[in-house]
């Protein structure tokens, strides 16, 4: 029989090593690679499509359609979709470990557990940013090039545009981390996705049903609305200022992550 007790270079577990391990985990799942690619394609594709529709139909549009039109928001039409798909990927990054039992291997290697959570935050966060940053700029430039056929495009130098284009990837990254934190708390894929979708998509219409005096003061502080402020080019009076709104959203993410961290250490695997 082969000997297995060969001396070898075992090193202590460090945060850096756990990050490297989490990176291997993320890129080695075919489903994750596909989902990231699909997010990128759809975020760009939907925006481009929307620009084509406006450019070709422009001559026939009503006055209200024309006044409501904004070249930046049209080219970023796919971002609403991307926020859901990145959020769901964040959920899956951790619930996938629970549903398959992988979490026991992970905690066996990193029994202190928190380095695993921080590593996932770093690895998934940077991946989300690295994908959504180019996607945002690509769809902006391609979209504006299409709209320029009718001279209804907007330039990068226009006030607020650059901030919005940086804001989109920041927002998507934060949304991904929000999903990760929700997934770490809920621990089941179905539950995590339901909780995320509920907070992002179901909460706003529910608040909308409240008396308008209440709704108007609560609405800007909802997670999706506060986070969305950073890529809104024409802030209406009901929304928070771009960076203030984003700061509120980051606070939500931070608190959710903190809860996830406490539960992660306390609960049985």
């Amino acid at each position, binding site marked *: 029989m082969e000997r297995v007790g060969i001396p070898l270079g075992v090193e*202590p577990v460090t945060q850096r090593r756990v990050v490297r391990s989490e990176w291997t985990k993320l890129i080695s799942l*075919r489903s994750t690679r596909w989902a990231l690619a699909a997010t990128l394609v759809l975020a760009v594709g939907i925006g481009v499509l929307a620009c084509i529709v406006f450019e070709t139909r422009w001559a026939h549009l009503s006055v209200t359609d024309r006044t409501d039109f904004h070249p930046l928001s049209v080219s970023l039409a796919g971002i609403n979709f991307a926020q859901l798909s990145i959020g769901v990927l964040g959920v899956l990054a951790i619930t996938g470990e629970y549903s398959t039992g992988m979490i026991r291997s992970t905690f066996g290697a990193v029994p202190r557990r928190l380095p695993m959570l921080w590593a996932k935050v770093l690895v998934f966060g940077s991946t989300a940013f690295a994908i959504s940053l180019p996607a945002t700029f690509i769809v902006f430039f391609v979209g504006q090039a299409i709209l320029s056929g009718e001279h209804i495009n907007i330039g990068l130098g226009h006030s607020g545009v650059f901030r919005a284009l940086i804001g989109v990837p920041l927002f998507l990254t934060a949304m991904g981390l929000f999903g990760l934190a929700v997934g770490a708390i809920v621990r089941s894929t179905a539950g995590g996705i339901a909780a995320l979708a509920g907070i992002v998509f179901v909460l706003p219409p529910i608040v909308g049903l409240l008396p308008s005096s209440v709704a108007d003061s609560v609405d800007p502080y909802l997670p999706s609305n506060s986070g969305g402020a950073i890529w809104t080019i024409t802030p209406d009076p009901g929304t928070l200022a771009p960076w203030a709104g984003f700061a509120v959203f980051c606070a939500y993410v931070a608190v959710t992550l903190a809860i996830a961290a406490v539960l992660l250490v306390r609960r049985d695997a």
Partner: protein
Amino acid sequence: MIELRGVSKSYGRKTAVHDLSFTVRPGLVTGFLGPNGSGKSTTMRLILDLDAPDGGEVTVNGKRYRDHRAPLHQVGALLEASSIHTGRSAYDHLLAMAQTHGLGRERVEAMIDLVGLREVARKRAGTFSLGMRQRLGIASALLADPRVVMLDEPINGLDPEGILWVRNLLKGLAAEGKTVFVSSHLMSEMALTADHLIVIGKGELIADVGVREMIGRSSQSSVRVRSPDAARLAEVIAAPDVKVRNLGTDLIDVQGLDAEEIGLAAHVSGIVLYELSPRQASLEDAFMELTGEAIEYRAGEGSASTTALAKAA
């Protein structure tokens, strides 16, 4: 070395482990034996700090598992339930595990060869058979050259060749001076592999003995007697230290007398014997005797498996 002192763990109202204390020593294969549901897997999760005990203390090589700087070098474990992401290849799984301890591709390759998964290493673990998953789990356990090897029911799903391989692997690891702790609900398997036994039932310690001692400690050998007049024979040989069990209409099992004494008694009373066979107590018997009272669902399980067998036949 694994040490448990007064460890208890409940899930809701269900007590899985109660006041459990034992020590697992290096250089031996220690079998962890108990019927299904007796708390073996729970105990192993407590050792790995996956679950927190309600009371008591668990240490591995002198420290709590989570306090070790290179935990996989202290304990390499294969848990009962699958602990692998089904979407990841065997190679990538091992690589991710290895990287947490600064190990690289070379070590991963070596482990893949050791467990014989070379051909399927790049395939998703979800496509693996139970036996292949067990092998991957063993590769994962041995990755960081652990001082303690802890395997939960490792032969589940293995073919006879695989079982032999695991048996030899465990003995080899123990011979290298490692602590080897392996659970099973099959006494027969442990009889072939283990040097020492820790037996639990209903979450409590029943025995902590050497395998030889275990056989010795068990009830004496018995004699099986077949006779058309078995009932009368039972009356004839009745005595305070003689135990007679009815095994059928004409079959009894006698403890406390040897074959010659029974044969003679039958002759004197004119009873015809068809069979008179001395039986050596096996480790299996010893185990059944020890855990007999601790088995909770034996009747239910037995009947279920009988019907399953009947269906299969």
